[in-house]
């Protein structure tokens, strides 16, 4: 697509911009859907109906919210650090948006087939921390500051178990490319990394429990990285009002919200790529059976999106079920449980793979 546009306009910048608009639109659409989904999921879990008045079962609700937010007055507190205050939401959004470049939606749809995709995603999503700190500091509000401090501590800490599990998987699969990791787990669901990977043998069965441990650690720490309950301490509604975005109004706050949902999708997709075969179908492809070439990528997209949305749904499910941990308990979970288990897991998987 980029090539075609480049040929058409012979201008790198314009064609890049146009290509970049595609995922942006997709993410926006997804976020609109996810926010609506969250409200419906929570409502039905709580014996309610959720939005009902805007379109069929309120499916236009988020669109109405967004249009309203665009209209809202953009307030900046008098004592705020205006530059940082304005940059912060952009930075946070950029960080979570950039992660989508390396995610393989199917074997044909992938923004950038870089060899170090996994590394890139971990690196780029850390940009969010800087944005959050900026937001908390520049708001000149004590609640924001506390929220930002908590958030920074939390995200930085939870990157360690995430990185350790990623390291385990990289060691096992032997590549940093997300596309290659997905390709390895082809054919049927017992070839997924969660079930010991594609190579059949004794090692596969030994690995299954350790893969399960790795999967759980990964899921928990990604939950914490995107600030979802039970780790939503930075924005802890009942303590810190709204955490680091207390002072933000209108669309600037909307960007924080969009990036939160984009992040949810990004981490869910990484979990599903690493452990559940990414875009690979669990039962083979209809397109291959019928001999229709172009159907395969579409099927892959379907499987990828369903797996990821399932994890997004689980995140929502947890949010509306569990209470919130306290900030020190959060750190305890990370440093005393997740990291040691992740290290032990790394060593065991390493030895098993080596043998």
């Amino acid at each position, binding site marked *: 697509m980029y090539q075609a546009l480049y040929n058409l306009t012979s201008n790198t910048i314009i064609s890049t911009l146009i290509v970049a608009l595609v995922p942006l639109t997709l993410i926006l659409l997804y976020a609109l859907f996810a926010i609506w989904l969250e*409200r419906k999921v929570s*409502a039905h879990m*709580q*014996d*309610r*109906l*959720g*939005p*009902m*008045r*805007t379109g069929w079962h*309120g499916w*236009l*609700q988020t*669109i*109405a*919210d*967004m*249009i*309203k937010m665009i*209209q*809202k*007055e*953009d*307030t900046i507190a008098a004592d705020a650090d205006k530059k940082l205050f304005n940059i912060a939401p952009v930075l946070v959004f950029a960080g979570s948006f950039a992660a989508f470049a390396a995610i393989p939606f199917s074997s044909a749809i992938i923004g950038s087939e870089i060899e170090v995709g996994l590394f890139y995603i971990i690196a780029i999503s850390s940009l969010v921390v800087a944005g959050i700190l900026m937001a908390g500091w520049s708001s000149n509000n004590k609640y924001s500051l506390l929220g930002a401090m908590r958030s920074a501590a939390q995200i930085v800490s939870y990157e360690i178990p995430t990185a350790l599990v990623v390291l385990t998987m990289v060691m096992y699969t032997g590549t940093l490319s997300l596309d290659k990791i997905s390709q390895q787990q082809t054919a049927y669901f017992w070839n997924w990394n969660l079930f010991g990977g594609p190579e059949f043998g004794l090692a596969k069965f030994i690995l299954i429990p350790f893969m399960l441990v790795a999967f759980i650690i990964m899921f928990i720490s990604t939950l914490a990285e995107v600030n979802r309950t039970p780790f939503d301490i930075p924005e802890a*509604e009942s303590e810190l*009002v*709204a955490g680091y975005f*207390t*002072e*933000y*109004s*209108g669309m600037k*706050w909307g960007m924080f919200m969009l990036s939160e949902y984009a992040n949810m999708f990004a981490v869910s997709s990484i979990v599903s790529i690493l452990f559940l075969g990414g875009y690979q179908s669990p039962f083979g492809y209809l397109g291959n059976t019928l001999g229709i070439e172009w159907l395969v990528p579409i099927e892959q997209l379907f499987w990828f999106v369903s797996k990821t949305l399932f994890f997004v749904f689980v995140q929502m499910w947890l949010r509306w079920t569990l209470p919130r941990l306290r900030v020190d308990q959060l750190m305890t979970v990370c440093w005393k449980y997740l990291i040691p288990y992740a290290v032990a897991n790394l060593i065991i998987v390493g030895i098993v793979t080596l043998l």
Partner: protein
Amino acid sequence: MGILDKEFSDGNIVITKVEDLFNWARLSSIWQLGFGLACCAIEMMATSASHYDFDRFGVIPRNTPRQADAIIISGTVTLKMATRIKRLYEQMPEPKYIISMGSCANCGGPYWNHGYHVLKGVDRVIPVDVYVPGCPPRPEALLEGLLKLQEKIRHESLTKKQA
């Protein structure tokens, strides 16, 4: 007052359509400031809870005034509290709406005569869009108040009023 409100001197077809869209968005997504004062706050909570479910109308409570569109004054406003309510109102971004819920917020309610520390009506400090009578109003009454507010928003205009 939103960014574009009362910015245009005449209304052509584009403006009226945009106006309709904007008004629709505003009225379908009235986020209230999660803020309870007194007895009525309990009925307000009951309205957002399962049985009556405010969320059907797109109303969700936000805890910070910066992200709220409407403030429901749910209960007696005392003199000590009045200055804070004014501050909260000023912190909300435009366009903002106010529902005065219950007799106390409307006019002092049962405390109108001997209440030496009760503000006799919240409209003495901030402008009110919709008054909901009752002591306390039933959740249905509050929902009715919300529908009235939606009705009011539906007729807002981007064009300037002609003299």
